[in-house]
């Protein structure tokens, strides 16, 4: 029944979302994350070299009022605090980095910093994060995002897990300043997929895996 439910969700692909997963995975893990919306794409290749720290290559595209902004660079993620309870986990992360920015046929530098907090059990999920990027060209970028989720069933370890979530994004310098996206998340073992459509009909497709 649970498997059928998960397969139905994949086939429907109705709802929308953005992949939000822990920036730091288990020690030694390599992760690939990509999340995409028409006005913004973010891609990471991460390596967790400690249980509380990871380094990543990040490639980012943002659609601003005056054109497309691109960033390529490094990111360092650090787990500040984790609470492991019997039936819950909560985390606080900070991250930052720097790299090369391209905007309106110009090339410059950019640096950024962010903070993220999440709390979850097998039924409910919540997340909030804030990020600020300052390039030497183009506009600065601020991003605040929140997410609430509920699982229709509590999936076991070897089952397909599915979640329904609502994500709110606020980024005042992008073409789309405020976006609310209902979404569906499914994952099985090390593979995670999210898809959704915002209230303004912007699609979202996110994917992540660890190895």
């Amino acid at each position, binding site marked *: 029944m649970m498997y059928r439910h998960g397969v139905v969700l994949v086939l429907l692909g109705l709802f929308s979302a953005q992949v939000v*997963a*822990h920036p*730091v*995975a*288990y*020690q*030694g*893990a390599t992760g690939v994350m990509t999340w995409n919306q028409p006005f913004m794409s973010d891609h990471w290749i991460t390596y967790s070299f400690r*249980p509380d720290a990871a380094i990543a290559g990040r490639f980012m595209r943002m659609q601003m009022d005056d054109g497309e902004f691109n960033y390529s660079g490094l990111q360092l993620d650090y787990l500040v605090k*984790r*609470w*492991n*309870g*019997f*039936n*819950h*986990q909560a985390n606080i992360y900070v991250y930052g980095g720097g790299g090369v920015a391209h905007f309106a046929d110009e090339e410059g530098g950019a640096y950024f910093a962010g903070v993220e907090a999440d709390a*979850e*059990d*097998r039924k409910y999920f919540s997340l909030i994060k804030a990020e600020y990027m300052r390039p030497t060209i183009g506009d600065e970028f601020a991003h605040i995002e929140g997410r609430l989720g509920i699982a229709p069933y*509590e*999936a*076991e*370890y*070897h*089952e397909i*897990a599915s979640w329904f979530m609502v994500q709110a994004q606020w980024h005042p310098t992008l073409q789309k300043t405020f976006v609310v996206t209902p979404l569906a998340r499914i*994952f*099985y*073992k*090390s593979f*995670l997929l999210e898809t959704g459509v915002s209230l303004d009909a912007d699609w979202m497709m996110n994917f992540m895996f*660890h190895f």
Partner: protein
Amino acid sequence: MKLRTFTGVLAVVLVALGSSVVQAKPIRIQVNGMVCAFCAQGIEKKFKAMPQVEALKVSLETKKVDLEIKEGATISDEQIKKIVTEAGYEVVKIERSL
């Protein structure tokens, strides 16, 4: 070969085979924070990378990891705690000889 002789030989062979079968030793680990299968993959991958580990079962419902260790092999509490900690979780209890 008469049936009685054949049966006797077969019994001796089966007993010999039975005594050489590897008996897995179970260890049960109670783990806090294990609420998501996607995030708990590290526990499985790290334990399965150990040559001592015969098999592993993870339960998100009970928050338990059951390990079967190969006959003659050992794995210390410290090794178990190190692996679980590196996977991002917390060992509450380790039970042996279930």
